[in-house]
């Protein structure tokens, strides 16, 4: 089986210094692989074990991160056999359609792909759109919210976990699947994995100027401002404190 696992290098926003009401300096944050994307890579590696002779290809659309050897090693140390990077500055901060268009085109160019895997959403935007959209653009069978994946003969068996129900499906390939964060626990690469990652193949497809046009314009980015609050804080658990809280709760009951 030829499996593609897609991922995105995102700014590690936990390290961002946020000033209420001001624009966070996203470019100052170090890059990291989106945490949910690691579930897609791990799912690809586990499926590849079920189908001996499989190839796992990591795929990303990136601007600045495209040339980072550290980021390349980070993804390849998680197991994929090789990496394909679609490169254009327009992919930094690109919307779902621009990203999905680039990934769908790359998947067609890779050729012979049986299965494309995504995580449940990107770590920075978490719109949960790109996996479904790549399925739509390729015209392949597509499901999101997948919490279990298996193979049965030449078909894929999946379990979808939703808020009010679960579903199981059998799908012929090719297909695009977005997995949940509960599907697996991504592996922690060993020193050997990290050293081995440097020897794996990396193909960079230069797409400068070829990115799809975006129809969504970013107007601004601002750290949230705190609302004005009464700030009546009781320094210990007194009857007066409980009374004051109970009064507010009773008002809404």
């Amino acid at each position: 089986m030829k499996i593609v696992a897609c991922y995105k290098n995102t700014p590690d926003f936990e390290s961002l210094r946020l000033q209420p009401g001001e624009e966070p300096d996203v470019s100052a944050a170090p890059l990291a692989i989106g945490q949910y994307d690691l579930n897609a890579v791990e799912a690809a590696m586990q499926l590849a074990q079920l189908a001996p002779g499989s190839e796992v290809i990591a795929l990303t659309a990136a601007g600045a991160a495209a040339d980072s050897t550290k980021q390349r090693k980070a993804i390849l140390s998680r197991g994929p056999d090789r990496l394909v990077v679609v490169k254009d500055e327009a992919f930094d901060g690109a919307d779902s359609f621009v990203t999905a268009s680039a990934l769908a085109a790359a998947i067609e160019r890779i050729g012979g792909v049986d299965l494309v895997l995504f995580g449940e959403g990107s770590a920075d935007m978490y719109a949960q759109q790109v996996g479904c959209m790549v399925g739509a653009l390729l015209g392949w069978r597509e499901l999101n919210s997948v919490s279990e994946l298996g193979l049965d003969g030449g078909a894929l068996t999946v379990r979808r976990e939703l808020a009010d129900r679960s579903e199981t499906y059998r799908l012929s390939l090719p297909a695009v699947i977005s997995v949940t964060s509960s599907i697996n626990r991504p592996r922690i690469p060993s020193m050997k994995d990290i050293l081995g990652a440097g020897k794996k193949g990396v193909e960079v497809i230069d797409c400068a100027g070829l990115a799809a046009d975006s129809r969504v314009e970013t107007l601004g980015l601002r750290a949230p401002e705190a609302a004005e609050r009464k700030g009546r804080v009781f320094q210990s658990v007194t009857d007066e404190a409980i009374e004051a809280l109970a009064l507010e709760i009773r008002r809404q009951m």
Partner: protein
Amino acid sequence: MEKAKICLAVIDDAGAAAPLTALAGRLAGRVFVAAIDAPEAAVNAEKAWLISTGGAGAAAAVGAVTRLLEELAPELVITGAGRDSRMLAAHCAAALRTSALTDADELTPEPGAIAARRLVYGGGAYKSVRAAYPAVICAGPSLAGAAAEAAPCAVLEEIRASLPEGMELTGRAEKSVVKVGLGAAKIVLGLGRGVKDAANVERAAAFAARIGAELGCTRPVAEDEGLLPRERYIGVSGAVIKPALYIAAGISGQIQHMAGVNSSGVIIAINKDKQAAIFENCDYGVVGDMMEVLDALDEKLS
């Protein structure tokens, strides 16, 4: 306010039909509904298509919905925020060659476009965007959960839909769990790391049920500790909640979490650390053990 001409509301969850179609009516002159396996979602519209999939669900309805886009050529498509809704939104957006505005809040129609705002970076920032028509909106929970009138739709047309070839639904099980209605709840009890263990979560849940509160939590409680399902994690999807009362128990009050709850009417904070940032951002605060305070409140209120 300049309205869009035509809006198609794609509804896969009857519970969200009234608020989503009412929202569509505020944003567009003419409203149409695609109701998936939910005839009761045919409300507040000029015409509704009842898409019946025989239980196969949203994945089966995708083809029928995108064909409606060709027929209607809407300027706006509105969906809910669940996983099925997002899947439908992605297919609509792909067909219209645009990106869906997910978890959208503060929607403002402009000439030829719609502006919206959402939380990004795990609650670290608001991103304001403007999408040219045709645009796709996945309404955030405070919009999808708002109370709204529902007038039944007079013109109905039925469409039968089935899964694409090579895709078969082999099983389906309803969950007994109550749906998480963080968007619609008047009171939300948010649990932070201070809740510590499953036994305390259970006690807090029982208290929440008695006061009619919906239970929410912070990222570590859902993701690191796995004490509550991810649906209850506030801030994960950029969703902003706006309950009349938010009770933050054992929550330190990082900006990423506060962004998701700042629009609450009243905020009560309970934390044993008197330095916790949450105390700078609350209406009432008590420094003390959260379980002790919840138990005392439970006693007082029962």
